[in-house]
């Protein structure tokens, strides 16, 4: 009964102030569309950095007769293996023999290896850390002193640092951008509700005079804010869906993207947007009601 009245009052007001309402819906639409892009892009990039982080390994290169004076002995290789077994930061490791390395090399650079007469590559351990951040620590544990038979330990310092840095920066931009957009949407909804209150001053005055309870006066405006938010977010979701279906294949076709890099699934993003816009709508109208509708 009551809710029915509130809905009819809110719809009546939306109809009466269609231009302001449209402005608010458009703002939410733009804000939520950008937020949706941010979430999709952000989650894709985070997934990408995780993928890259997975590539972060520590390579333990053993001596060859070219680099040191003599080849590393099996005994020495086993000693390193035992050490890795005991290290809690090591998730797993893989032995790459001279021949494996050579095959890999041949595969990747056939013209380079074609004229080489003998295999110059060292045997190595490829050590995968539990956590990508730990590559440096694992490398350090195998250096100073370097175990006998080990020529050098590499973990792609530069690459690791860059990847982690980029991931942090992207995360921060993602967060800040989203917050700015949410605040902007909230303020704009607040402004719309304020205009709505202004254009309905008379009605509110009458409501108060005939003894409407505070909630009775407020509820239609709250509902109006929520409906604005909801409409904007639904339109944004539709736009995003169109973008995903038509624009994305064109873009993704050009980017090499392994299967394990995935943005968050669309329904989740859509759900987040709708929830956020409802929140923004409620907050926006709440702020204005507090300031402009002292009853």
């Amino acid at each position, binding site marked *: 009964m*009551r809710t029915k009245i509130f809905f009819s009052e809110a719809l009546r007001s939306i109809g009466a102030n269609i231009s302001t309402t449209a402005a608010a819906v458009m703002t939410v639409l733009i804000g939520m569309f950008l937020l949706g892009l941010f979430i999709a892009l952000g989650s894709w990039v985070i997934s990408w950095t995780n993928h890259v982080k997975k590539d972060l390994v520590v390579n333990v290169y053993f001596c060859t007769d070219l680099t040191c004076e003599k080849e590393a002995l099996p005994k020495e290789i086993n000693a390193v293996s035992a050490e890795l077994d005991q290290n809690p930061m090591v998730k797993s490791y893989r032995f790459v023999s001279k021949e494996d390395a050579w095959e890999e090399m041949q595969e990747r650079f056939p013209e380079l290896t074609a004229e080489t007469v003998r295999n110059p590559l060292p045997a190595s351990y490829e050590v995968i850390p539990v956590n990508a951040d730990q590559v440096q620590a694992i490398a350090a544990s195998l250096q100073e002193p370097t175990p006998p038979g080990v020529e050098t330990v590499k973990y792609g310092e530069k690459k690791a640092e860059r990847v982690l840095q980029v991931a942090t920066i992207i995360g921060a931009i993602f967060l800040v951008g989203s917050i700015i957009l949410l605040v902007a949407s909230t303020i704009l909804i607040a402004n719309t509700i304020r205009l709505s209150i202004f254009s309905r001053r008379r009605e509110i005055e009458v409501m*108060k005079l*005939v*003894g*409407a309870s*505070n909630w*009775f006066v407020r509820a239609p405006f709250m509902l109006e804010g929520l409906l604005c938010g909801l409409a904007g977010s639904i339109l944004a979701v539709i736009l995003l869906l169109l973008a995903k279906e038509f624009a994305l294949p064109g873009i993704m076709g050009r980017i090499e993207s392994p299967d394990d890099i995935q943005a968050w699934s669309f329904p989740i993003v859509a759900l987040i947007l709708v929830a956020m816009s409802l929140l923004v709508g409620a907050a926006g109208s709440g702020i204005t009601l507090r300031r402009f509708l002292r009853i």
Partner: protein
Amino acid sequence: MQETDQTDHLDASRATTAELNGDPEEATQVEPVAPEPAPSGSPMIIFEAVSKVYDPNVVALRDTSFVIDKGEFVFLVGPSGSGKSTIMRLLLRELDPTGGRIIVGGRELARLRRSKVPMLRRNIGCVFQDFKLLTDRTAYDNVAYALKVQGQSKDLIRAKVPEILALVGLGSKMNSFPHELSGGEQQRVSVARAFVNHPPLLICDEPTGNLDPDTSVGIMQLLYRINRTGTTVLMATHDREMVDKMQRRVIALEEGVVVRDERRGGYG
């Protein structure tokens, strides 16, 4: 002496109201010896040394005291800025007094919780010079709105609204919008809205201020009839002729001070 005077007056006005809508129920009510639920002696409104100062230093009311009994019909007269509207707004608790006490229907307004203010207003009908009707709703919806806002049931609204509109003489114009009605008719709608709940107190802020003299008489008769149902009526006005003719209690204000309070006075 006074009593007979009153009845005479009432009978005269009774005739006009019966003419107004030919309500048979009202005709039967003429019979009793004291048809007017005259001031019963228990107060409806008490102003106790009330003062109101607006920012920064505009004094609207200065130590104003008066008592209005239940069932009274009281005119509040005085030049613009003498504090009439301030009294109205204080009664509705749109404003809080700077000093003193206001008691309405036995409740001290200052002690009323904010959330109870709507309850207070439901018991006070208001009529204004500018009608304060909602322009995008019909006469019916304007009156129904007052009931809807108070959470009344649909059935009750459907029963009460046509009844009260017929009572104010607008039975045939229920579906007209305010702009399709004359000033007098609009004011009748607003009276209907104010009275649809039968509030114990009706306050009117220059209800005839925008109306021509003939139309004003019609509105006054309406208010008079409402008063006779037992509702206390407090009416601020500039209408000298009307006040003189009605011979009711007059409280005159000047610069926020009560300068005259006569049981049966003229505009002065």
